[in-house]
């Protein structure tokens, strides 16, 4: 047994040097310059997230860290926590969620005569791609279907009123994603007069 730099203890053995807590540190335990440097690097690496990441990769395949020291699952979790600190995961997660939430999606409202432009019922589905739209969306008789209002809305503001238009007396229903929104939530609302009303 030899005492090296900084009071670290190494034991000479065939496989290489070990420090005071019997960890392999990658050196040969000889105490020369290279061995000392590896000891110092190993001490520093105890706080290095990149080294922890490499240890975890090694653990996944061999059950040991990159220097051959046995690791428990608890050790692996601790090292993962240093690689992806919980606070940072939260910040990353929330910024990703913010990004997705601000994605703008188009929404549509068919209206006319008794159905005003400002009502609350909207659809995520573009009516021009739906044959028999009136029937599937459950447009009431008061709605002449002459106009199409199109706008967009951030994904986070979407409020699904009914997952599918209800099969009420007088229509088949079934059009997915009936939304309940306010007109003032719409970004760049635009009206189109339809040549062929719904």
């Amino acid at each position: 047994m030899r005492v090296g730099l900084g009071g670290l203890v190494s034991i000479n053995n065939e496989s290489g040097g070990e420090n005071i807590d019997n960890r392999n540190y990658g050196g040969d335990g000889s105490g020369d310059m290279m061995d000392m440097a590896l000891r110092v690097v190993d001490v520093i690496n105890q706080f290095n997230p990149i080294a922890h990441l490499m240890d975890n990769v090694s653990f996944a395949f061999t059950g040991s860290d990159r220097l051959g020291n046995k690791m428990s699952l608890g050790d692996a979790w601790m090292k993962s926590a240093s690689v992806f600190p919980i606070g940072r995961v939260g910040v990353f997660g929330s910024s990703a969620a913010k990004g997705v939430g601000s994605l703008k999606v188009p929404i549509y409202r068919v209206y006319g005569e008794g159905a005003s432009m400002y009502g609350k019922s909207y659809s995520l589905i573009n009516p021009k791609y739906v044959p028999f739209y009136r029937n599937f969306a459950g447009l009431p008789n008061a709605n002449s279907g002459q106009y199409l209002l199109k706008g967009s809305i951030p994904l986070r503001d979407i409020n699904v009123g009914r997952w599918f238009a209800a099969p009420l007396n007088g229509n088949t229903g079934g059009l997915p994603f009936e939304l309940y929104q306010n007109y003032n939530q719409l970004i760049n609302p635009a009206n189109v007069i339809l040549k062929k009303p719904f």
Partner: protein
Amino acid sequence: MFGFKKNKDEDFNLVLEERANFLSILMALMQLLKSSGNNAQSDFIHKLIELFNQNNLDHFVKLINGVDMWGGAGAVWEVYIEDQNKVKEFEKEMLRLISLMEKTKIIGNGIKPIKKIFEDNMKTG
């Protein structure tokens, strides 16, 4: 023929017992819709009141569960009302109507999600 279908008169007894409540709610809704410029919807509610008064309950139940009441754009439930006090009043009356329809067992499919919307609106004020 095999007795699977209930006697309609028997079914509508509950509705008839609540005649006063139905009419008071429908009258309130009609006035709110009229005063907020939603004339087509107000006329529809007027038609419901007439059917009730004529004891044409079969037709009344069909229409009160139909697209004109609970459908998409232009239905009664989703009208735009500018005055926020009237909005609250309207949503309160709509909730009363849904509860009454539940109580009298005439409520159809697809109306409960709307009840939840109104309840949430009432909670958030």
